[in-house]
């Protein structure tokens, strides 16, 4: 971590110099930051603020690169907002597909849109942050007092969050997926429009999810040509969401570490859930529709069987 932090400012400096960018103010601040950065590395345990700083560093790199290229090509107009616009959108798309989302992304997006002008702003923010940090750590460093349990606990979690954000469960392991699009067809059927898409996001066979849905809802249904699921009966989006949530809990997330990064494999008639994160492997309940009462017309059934 320390190395990174030492490393980053220098990188940033180089790039800034290369660009020969017109912001004198930025240069001045750059010096500020380079002065401040070592101080920061001095007291290692900077939790959230470090993250912020690292983020901004990364961003600056990107920005600089971009503008560098652009300048080479055009030799003019350092600020080209349209060139940057597409990227955040792409990221949006990626966000939707990818299940886990760092919450740093939202920050990035905001700042990217703001363009170069906010370099100064960012630096200002950083300055503030570091002041805050020093405030926070002032009472850590100077005094010999006993640390309270809460403080230490917070510190440990902050460090954990900072060093590998994926480890701290609950924070990063957010499971975000598109809501199911449920539309009524006529009065008796329901269409689940993005069924295959959801199967893909969950990395499960459509057949498996289909079996589960139909067994849970106690109805019949099938996938039609447009890869949407047609279910018999009236269902609302909320109800389908509920069932999907149950499916995810049982068949997608690892029972041990709750990571969604799992593989469902069939082994001697039983389904096993293999976790890619923690390596655990456990069997999951088989899908059974159980007892189905007669709801249709009995005469029709009798006619069919006889």
């Amino acid at each position, binding site marked *: 971590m320390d190395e990174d932090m030492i490393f980053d400012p220098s990188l940033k400096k180089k790039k800034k110099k290369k660009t020969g960018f017109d912001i004198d103010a930025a240069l001045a601040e750059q010096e500020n930051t380079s002065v401040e950065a070592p101080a920061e590395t001095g007291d290692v345990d900077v939790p959230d603020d470090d993250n912020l700083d690292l983020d901004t560093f990364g961003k600056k790199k990107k920005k600089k690169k971009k503008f560098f290229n652009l300048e080479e090509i055009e030799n003019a107009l350092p600020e080209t907002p349209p060139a940057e616009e597409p990227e955040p959108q792409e990221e949006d798309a990626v966000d939707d597909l990818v299940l886990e989302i760092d919450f740093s992304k939202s920050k990035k997006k905001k700042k990217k849109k703001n363009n170069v002008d906010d370099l100064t702003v960012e630096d200002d923010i950083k300055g503030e942050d570091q002041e805050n940090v020093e405030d926070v750590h002032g009472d850590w460093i100077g005094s010999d007092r006993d640390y309270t349990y809460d403080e230490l606990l917070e510190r440990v979690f902050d460090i954990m969050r900072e060093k590998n954000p994926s480890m701290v469960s609950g924070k990063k392991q957010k499971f975000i997926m598109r809501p199911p699009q449920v539309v009524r067809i006529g009065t008796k059927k329901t269409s689940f429009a993005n069924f295959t898409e959801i199967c893909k996001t969950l990395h499960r066979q459509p057949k498996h999810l289909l079996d589960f849905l139909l*067994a*849970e*809802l*106690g*109805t019949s249904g099938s996938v039609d040509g447009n890869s949407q699921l047609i279910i018999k*009966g*009236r*269902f609302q989006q909320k*109800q*389908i969401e*509920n*069932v999907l949530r149950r499916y995810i809990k049982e068949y997608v997330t690892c029972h041990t570490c709750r990571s969604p990064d799992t593989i469902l494999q069939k082994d001697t008639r039983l389904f096993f859930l293999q976790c890619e994160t923690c390596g655990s492997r456990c069997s999951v309940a088989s899908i059974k529709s*159980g*007892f*189905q*009462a007669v*709801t249709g017309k009995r005469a029709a059934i009798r006619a069919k069987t006889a």
Partner: protein
Amino acid sequence: MSIQNLNTFDPFADAIKSSEDDVQDGLVHVRIQQRNGRKTLTTVQGLSSEYDLKKIVRACKKEFACNGTVVEHPEYGEVLQLQGDQRENICQWLTKSGLVKPEQLKVHGF
């Protein structure tokens, strides 16, 4: 003098007992089925055959003000059927009367 370690222990005692319960995993499944229109049907599968399901259904009918029957099924044994969405009611009632433990209940449907 009895030494606990030397006592013979039948490892299959549990298995035999639970298989007698005519339920695969001791779970009581509460399901809902849609009928025509807004009508629904609640089925309760997996209640222990020690209990007199007829009496249970009689009590439930009175309690929830709905009709109901006991259906005999070759695979699942006796199954309780109640008219309407009685999932909440039946779960509460079964746990309150002590027939089923809350962790044994499994509610299906939306």
